[in-house]
């Protein structure tokens, strides 16, 4: 199926209705496998002990917080450049999910930092830039609620999203550019992962599980948004006919 075929909301709804049950099942399977590996197979870290278990949720949450904004940036281009009818729907629906993962990244990182660093929070580049990402998510969500017309809200949110995308490389390279308590990249780096396979495998399974969960929630939220717009259009028609 070509991308242009998905421009038809009815066709997209049919696809979502057919695909969602499979995605839900796949998410449940992967989450069960990931949690089993994380809790019953992966060994404790030789330095961090059992707190390494927090990594299996913290790192995927961090990746998906950034993935969410990257997805919104592509959707923003779809809104402003290609004028794809579902692009602003995709952008709007990714924001609360991305915000939730950014919050999880901050919360689990804080709970990991206290026993390992001796503090819940430091104002260093990595932590602060992720906090900025979380606040930007809230800003985009607020903007969507401020403007009633979805088309106008979509264009404004798309511009804000593209401006905010500058934060993504700052988050990624903050640990290289500035001194920070946060460790440097240990999975996606030149020379390969610096993590032992026994810990890397559960991390990858959990990351894939969280990613499929993100996509499932996103697809479901997009279906809801299309239905919401139908309800809005029908109510406007009804009001027009009645008035």
């Amino acid at each position, binding site marked *: 199926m070509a991308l242009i075929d998905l421009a038809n909301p009815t066709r997209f709804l049919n696809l979502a209705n057919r695909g969602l049950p499979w995605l839900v099942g796949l998410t449940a399977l992967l989450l069960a496998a990931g949690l089993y590996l994380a809790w019953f197979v992966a060994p404790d870290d030789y330095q961090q*002990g059992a707190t390494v278990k*927090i990594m299996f949720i913290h790192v995927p949450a961090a990746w998906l917080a950034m993935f969410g904004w990257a997805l919104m940036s592509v959707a923003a281009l779809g809104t402003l450049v290609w004028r794809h009818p579902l692009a602003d729907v995709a952008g709007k629906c990714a924001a609360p999910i991305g915000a939730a993962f950014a919050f999880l990244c901050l919360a689990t990182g804080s709970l990991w930092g206290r026993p390992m660093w001796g503090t819940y929070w430091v104002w260093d580049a990595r932590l602060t830039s992720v906090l900025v990402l979380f606040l930007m998510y809230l800003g985009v969500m607020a903007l969507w609620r401020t403007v009633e017309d979805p088309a106008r809200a979509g264009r404004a949110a798309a511009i804000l999203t593209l401006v905010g995308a500058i934060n993504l490389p700052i988050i990624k390279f903050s640990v290289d550019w500035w001194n920070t308590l946060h460790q440097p990249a240990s999975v996606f780096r030149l020379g390969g992962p610096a993590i032992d396979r026994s810990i890397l495998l559960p991390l990858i399974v959990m990351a894939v599980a969280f990613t499929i969960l993100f996509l499932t929630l996103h697809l479901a939220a997009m*279906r809801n948004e299309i*239905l919401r717009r139908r*309800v809005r259009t*029908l109510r406007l028609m009804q009001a027009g006919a009645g008035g």
Partner: protein
Amino acid sequence: MMALGPHAAFIVAAYLITAIVLAGLIAWVVIDHRAQARALADLDARGVRRRSETAQAKIA
């Protein structure tokens, strides 16, 4: 269940917060879908339909 060591509370809290937030996201999409489906069914019951659906109903 394995021993979680001296920092068990932090580990459990991290997983608990994650479970609560993810359950909240799932509840949000499920409740929202029911609300939109109910609103559409209500409009349909009152005869308010999209033009394409009205045309299809006439053909049928």
